[in-house]
């Protein structure tokens, strides 16, 4: 089948899902090709068989042409419809798998801007235009844009998704083997749209560990990455620095104690009740949004006093803060929590509310 792949000019299949997408591709293209040539062929045959052999006379009548029987028409349409629905079904199933990541992914933050790709790894490294990933391990990308819509496209993974400002989109893939795979921007974004390219470099596990140790000093063209000397703090550690620097800790505690804002302990991926009803999961997108527009989806029980950090926090710092909050996922079981009776704040693994707990408002 590789012959068919090459015939159709499809690139290498370098992700786990690429092969099955290509199978669907072959099925659709071959059957539709066959159909087109068949029908054109039939028409050509008709044109030859039924060509006019002499000029018609003015008083000449002709027999009416036959109408195809209704069952034939309906049968043909039903058959075609069934075929299309089958393709749609398979395509939809594959699409769902493409867009819904497994739970144990290695997450990388992607920030697109005119006209480059910036990648931030949980370990603290960051690279420009080259994305290093371990082979054979699911990698999830959390992507946002600094300015206009871009689109992250890796042909060899059969992967593409728009990168939109003001939102996070996530995609995932598993690279099947080590290698370098082109990244292309696939949504027109200005003058150098066609030059906004990069590479996904899939490394073996040991090579990838070595990359992480080198702290982002990976390939060439990496001016913003730290120099290759050790003790680059991890992303979550840098998050703690940022939290202190921007005054987050003035309102948010890290140990579960209630304060002006919700505590960071156990906040990541918790279900958070909202001011105007409903709930939301406090994922990376929600946390980021809350830093940029705190009143948008205000946590119930807290006043609208948090300022917006839009324009103050650098994207690297945002991801660092998110990582830091993420790292505060498991509160120690022994931490006593004093929660006022009138606040509902579901924390995973927290002991139940003590009915007599009192808390004067801050």
């Amino acid at each position, binding site marked *: 089948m590789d012959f068919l792949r090459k015939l159709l000019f499809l690139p290498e299949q370098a992700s786990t899902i690429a092969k099955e997408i290509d199978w669907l591709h072959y099925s659709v293209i071959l059957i539709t090709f066959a159909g087109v040539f068949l029908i054109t062929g039939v028409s050509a045959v008709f044109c030859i068989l039924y060509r006019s052999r002499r000029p018609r006379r003015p008083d000449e009548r002709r027999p009416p042409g036959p109408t195809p029987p209704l069952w034939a028409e309906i049968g043909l349409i039903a058959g075609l419809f069934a075929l299309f629905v089958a393709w749609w079904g398979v395509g939809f199933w594959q699409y769902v798998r493409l867009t819904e990541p497994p739970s144990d992914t290695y997450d990388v933050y992607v920030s697109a801007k005119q006209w480059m790709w910036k990648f931030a790894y949980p370990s603290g490294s960051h690279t420009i235009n080259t994305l290093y990933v371990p082979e054979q391990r699911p990698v999830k990308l959390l992507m946002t844009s600094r300015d206009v819509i871009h689109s992250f496209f890796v042909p060899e993974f059969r992967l593409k998704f728009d990168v939109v400002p003001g939102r996070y989109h996530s995609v995932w893939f598993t690279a099947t083997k080590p290698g370098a795979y082109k990244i292309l921007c696939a949504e027109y974004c200005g003058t150098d749209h066609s030059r906004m390219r990069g590479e996904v470099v899939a490394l073996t596990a040991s090579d990838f560990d070595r990359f992480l140790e080198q702290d982002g000093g990976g390939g060439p063209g990496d001016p913003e990455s730290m120099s290759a000397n050790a003790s680059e703090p991890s992303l979550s550690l840098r998050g703690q620095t940022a939290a202190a620097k921007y005054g987050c800790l003035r309102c948010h505690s890290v140990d579960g104690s209630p304060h002006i804002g919700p505590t960071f302990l156990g906040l990541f991926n918790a279900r958070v009740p909202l*001011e*105007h009803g409903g709930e939301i999961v406090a994922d990376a997108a929600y946390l980021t949004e809350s830093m940029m*527009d705190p*009143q*948008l989806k*205000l946590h119930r029980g807290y006043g609208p006093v948090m300022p917006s950090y839009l324009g103050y926090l650098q994207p690297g710092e945002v991801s660092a803060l998110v990582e830091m909050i993420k790292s505060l996922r498991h509160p120690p079981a022994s931490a006593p929590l004093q929660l006022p009776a009138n606040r509902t704040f579901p924390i995973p693994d927290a002991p139940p509310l003590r009915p007599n707990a009192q808390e004067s408002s801050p």
Partner: protein
Amino acid sequence: MPAPILGEQYASLDRQAVTLRFGMWLFLASELLLFSGLFVLYAAYRSMYRHDFVEAVHSNTMAYGTANTYVLLTSSFTVALAVFNIRRGALRAAMWLVLASAALGVTFLAIKAVEYGVHIREGALPGPYYHFADAATLGGNRFYTLYWVTTGAHALHVTGGIGVLLWTAWHVPRGRYTAGYHPRFENATLYWHFVDVMWLFIWPIYYLV
């Protein structure tokens, strides 16, 4: 009084009248789709900024909106009466009623102008010029931006409608319409009704709920 002209493509005056009215409905369908886009935008942003929108609606002065609703509803009434009159042959009455509607239309625009003045003073301006203290949120900004665009578009249509009504009234004494044949008159009033109906959607979403 000059006789109405029958186009060569029409079998009868009646057919011509029916076709003219049909064409007007088609045009109104396209206008409806135009406003629908604005309503869709409102719905989308309201679902994104639910709380802010509610707060912004409260910050909007209901009195102006309601006054305008009364004005437009009355003008629709007078314009409907005008059609009733022209069908009876009471051409002068029809003309004055149409002029009354036009005057009410102008009243609508005047109230709107006053209201816009208040908004400007308070800082409830669209986009980057927004600095309205009573709804100092991103959602409030979105609300008022959409408010300006939608009511602005509507005001443009009201202005056009007034022009259409004046043109119609101008032609009444010139014998353009008869009791038996007046599709263009009816079309003018139909347009005015449309403008009123659009306001009946704008009013609740920007002033009431």
